[in-house]
């Protein structure tokens, strides 16, 4: 599976992680194009269902990226997001999926480098896990 290119969705909060992603671009720090970002006002807005739906639709990995602990612009949305991600990890475990297919990350607006690093590491991780069962089926359907 060396040429496997995973589909990865990243839900990023407007104030911190999305800005960090912009900064990675501004500084031309490259990270895998597998990562596609969906902007949300706050990671606390990311419903656990969204993570499941992303996997259902064929994402091989999904992560939520919010502000650093204590920096959330809406007090504690990032901690709620963490709880949602943890819940979905448990569900995946019950399903016999690798829980590592979902993750939570934290960046401040200035952490472009770290954003790229996180994207890289997550992509590597998913590559090593291989395609998700759903993406295989979706792939076959096309």
């Amino acid at each position, binding site marked *: 599976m060396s040429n496997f290119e995973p589909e990865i969705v990243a839900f990023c909060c407007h104030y911190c992680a999305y800005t960090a992603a912009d900064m990675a671009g501004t500084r031309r720090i490259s990270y895998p194009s597998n990562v596609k970002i969906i902007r949300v006002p706050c990671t606390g807005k990311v*419903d*656990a*269902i969204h993570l*499941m*739906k992303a*996997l*259902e639709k064929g994402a091989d990995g999904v992560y939520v990226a919010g502000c650093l602990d204590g920096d959330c612009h809406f007090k504690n949305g990032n901690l709620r997001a963490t709880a949602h991600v943890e819940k979905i990890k448990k*569900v*995946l475990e*019950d*399903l*016999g*999926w690798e829980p590592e297919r979902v993750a939570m990350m934290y960046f401040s607006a200035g952490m472009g480098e770290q954003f790229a690093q996180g994207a890289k590491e997550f992509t590597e991780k998913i590559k090593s896990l291989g395609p998700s*069962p*759903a993406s295989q*089926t979706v792939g076959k359907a096309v």
Partner: protein
Amino acid sequence: MITAEQKPLQEIFGYIAPYEKILVVGCNECVTVCAAGGRKEVGLLSSALRLHSVKAGKKLEVLEHTLERQCDPEYVDQLKELAGQVDAIVSLACGCGIQTVAAQYAIPVFPGVNTKFMGASESQGIWAERCMGCGDCMLGVTGGICPVARCSKSLMNGPCGGNSSGKCEISEDVDCAWQLIWNRLVELGIQDRYEELVAAKDWRPAGGGGPRKIIREDLAASKIITEDMA
């Protein structure tokens, strides 16, 4: 409120294994309030079932619907069309709702939650047992704290010797109900009442007398009359 918790996914997978098209039905009452079987949980469980079927390499179509209340036949009637399309139903309502659905549709109906207890919300995400439905409420003599539901031994004349710093002998996380009752009596200035012996409980109204039913003649009258006329 009746509280419930989602069943282990593996158990639900086991129930639905033989079927290719199922309906997950939520209830917008108690189980929504305790975040076990509302629209959101229906969505999450449906997603999980789909992902599971994909992993298992089997065909599975999952429909989703949430009723206003699953323990009323009129609401359950609304499932008619959807139920006609599926092989089986997973209900996320409490045991009352599940049985109402099962009574109305001639396809297998499986529980998606474990119905737990009648409880109150202590804070966001935490519910605690408050009532056992003993049918003969004694809160009037115990300062508004129920020893039947909240004392591990349902003692009528507690506390037992296991009370340590106000916590029950079974766990430090459980308050000693009789300590609470005593505190409350003191707070209300009626601690003298403590020494009145509370007689052994008659368990008939609690279900000892068989399955219970309430018939409100005034409300049920028209129904009875209609039936009689028919």
